[in-house]
């Protein structure tokens, strides 16, 4: 918790990824093949549901199911546990993917630095 801040500002200031900058490595680099993320809910569906922009992500189909379930089951506010769990799990997976992307960028930066150091030493 906060080790990345220590790395960024004190110990490894040149390799730790900057959240403001775009990641510089090719997404396919290091992977034999990479699966693209699938968007299930269409733009028209999200528009009709009037989703705010922050919620129009790759988990929107679960959110739409959840909203429909809530609307159908009102006033029973305890009814949609399954749909809510699906949406939460999808969002959790999305966050874990973000963490993995950050870590991938960080390791690639360290690798780049190692290669440069080796090239200089040689």
């Amino acid at each position, binding site marked *: 918790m906060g080790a990345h801040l220590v790395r960024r500002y004190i110990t490894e200031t040149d390799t730790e990824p900057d959240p403001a900058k775009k990641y510089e490595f090719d997404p396919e680099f290091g992977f034999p093949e*990479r699966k693209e993320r699938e968007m299930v809910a269409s733009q028209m569906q999200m528009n009709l549901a009037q989703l705010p922009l922050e919620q129009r992500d790759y988990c929107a189909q679960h959110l739409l199911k959840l909203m429909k379930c809530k609307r159908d089951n009102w006033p029973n506010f305890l009814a949609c546990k399954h749909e809510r769990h699906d949406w939460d799990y999808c969002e959790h997976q999305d966050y874990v993917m973000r963490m993995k992307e950050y870590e991938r960028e960080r390791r690639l930066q360290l690798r780049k630095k190692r290669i440069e150091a080796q090239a200089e030493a040689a």
Partner: protein
Amino acid sequence: MAGVGFRRWAQALSKGKGSGISALLSGSRAASGSSKDTVLGPPPKSPEEMAAAAKKYNLRLEDYAPYPDKGEGFGDYPKLPDRSQAERDPWYKWDHPDLRRNWGEPMHWDFDMYIRNRVDTSPSPVPWSTMCKQLFGFIGFMLFMFYLGETFRSYQPVAPKQYPYKNLYLEKGGDPEKQPEEVKNYEI
């Protein structure tokens, strides 16, 4: 006959002690306002003038000091210490408890400013310099910490969130005719 009555009526009006126009015509004055011996006089120069002015304002000669004569129009009015009524003893039985003043006491030139509802010259409980140092020290420290927080921002170690449909190009108001740049999001 009518002329006699009219003349009598006019005389009665002018002699009567009424207010308004009749007061102007009759020459009698109201009892409010300063009388001839209490009105503001010229700045005193000689010791006799000083003594007379002190007596007029109900002060001892030792306590009486006029304003320096700079042509500002203070006359012989006494220069009293610039202390507000809030500094006076709250427990003494003043004639006017709210104003903390006794009857006949000389009033400060700015008395209406120094009443307890307005300007208060009481000393602060802690020295002024200490108060200034504490306040500005605190504000300066907070500003410095905010500056540090802006330079060395704290964030979670995650990549930016990925959105579909070319980063919601159309939803964010992008031009439908133009083709935006390609955005590919992968699983990991």
